[in-house]
């Protein structure tokens, strides 16, 4: 059963899986790239999204905007789920 898909659940996945780490608090609107989201961390993120939410992301769908914040990513993923 895929997990509930909200901005908060995407953010907790990112933090739980240590996709990024930050000394300052991270919110659903924090710029993830500014916190060090790079292509290697992105690969881990894609794997965990697939595991937790059951959503596979196609290479052509990879844009900076869709991954810039937990909120943007949740919205994109929710759109794919339906």
């Amino acid at each position: 059963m895929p997990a509930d898909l909200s901005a908060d659940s995407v953010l907790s996945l990112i933090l739980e899986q240590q996709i990024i780490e930050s000394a300052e608090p991270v919110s659903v609107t924090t710029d993830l790239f500014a916190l060090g989201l790079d292509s290697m961390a992105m690969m881990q993120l894609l794997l965990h999204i697939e595991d937790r939410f059951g959503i596979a992301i196609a290479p052509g769908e990879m844009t900076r905007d869709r991954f810039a914040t937990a909120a943007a990513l949740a919205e994109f993923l929710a759109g794919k789920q339906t």
Partner: protein
Amino acid sequence: MSPHDEYEVTVVGGGSAGVAAALAASRQGARTLLIERQQLLGGMGTNAMVHTFCGLFHPDVSQGPQWLNPGIPTELGTALMQRGGMEEPDLMGRVYVLRHRPADLASLTAELCAAEPHLTVLTGAEVTALSPGWTITLNDRLIHSRAVIDTTGDALLARLLGHSHWDLATSARLYRPAYVWSFQGLSAILDEPLRLHVAALIVRAVKAGALPAAALGTTLRASPTRGEVFVSTDLEAGGDHWDPLDLDQRLHLESEGRALAQAVWDFLRSSHPSFTTITPPVLPVHAGIRESARWRGDYVLSADDLIRSRRFEDEAALAGWPLEMRETARGPRFRYFDQPEPAGIPASCLRARSLPGMFFAGRCLSCDHEALASVRVMGTCLATGQAAGQMAAAFRP
């Protein structure tokens, strides 16, 4: 050559630290020998195809790029920029880095060494034994030297002396090794969208079983030459059992790296139109080892010293690179200094009181595992090497 050659300073290991040490010692007038087991100088920055100098610039980037350590780090950095046709270093988030071509580092270090009248360079020669005093055994001869500098990266001379002067982190914590290779002929600019696209392609291929899971540690970076790309894959290397000093594990790492390079190359070429034109992989001489044995000197530099930008009276060099921890092959964890101010590296990290005339620098200087995450970068190795070279040249028994 006579079977017993005499030198005032002998430097073992011709990487960033060793080249800087040999240049610094010989420029003080000391009759200096530099011994390197490979044929090219430059260490990891040449033979493992590490292609970016970190730690060359002041951590406060708000003033633009400011050289952090005067002397050889600034001289070599400036010369590398000229060879690479670079006007400025790259600002990567909160730090400046200098990209270079491994072949440029090899030729530049050789030229700088050849220009020093007091310096002899012996490449293709491996140190195999050491006795106090100091007598060094090479493949085919003995060397006597007043002072010796260990810049092997592996604290080889400490290990040759016995058990009491070196440390090695536990296998699970050791920073992971990586395999770096390159190709030319990419027909697009390697920008962020392309990098993200390739990341997603690799994930899909791993999921489909078309690439091994180890491919997930891969990063692509553009060289200073248009169309040339460095591919770097961090490897778990046996995880909890990794031992960088074990021959069999090193052999296994090399073959895993080569196989992975071939697989990733095949995959890229057939999976994206911008990669159909790429040339076959150019392989490194050997895999990149981030961490092995370190010396235990009079002072052990700690992560706390760095984070708090601590300064010392007997300061030998400055560190400015954040702690870049790579205990897994899933990407680095950065810890920045509390303030954008450099930290000092004391001379007591480059020598041991009980071993007069012995000095060490580079990634085998005396520091703890966390501090190594910062001071192992090549810009800092140039600075600690330079300091050790000056100390060794001034040493009198």
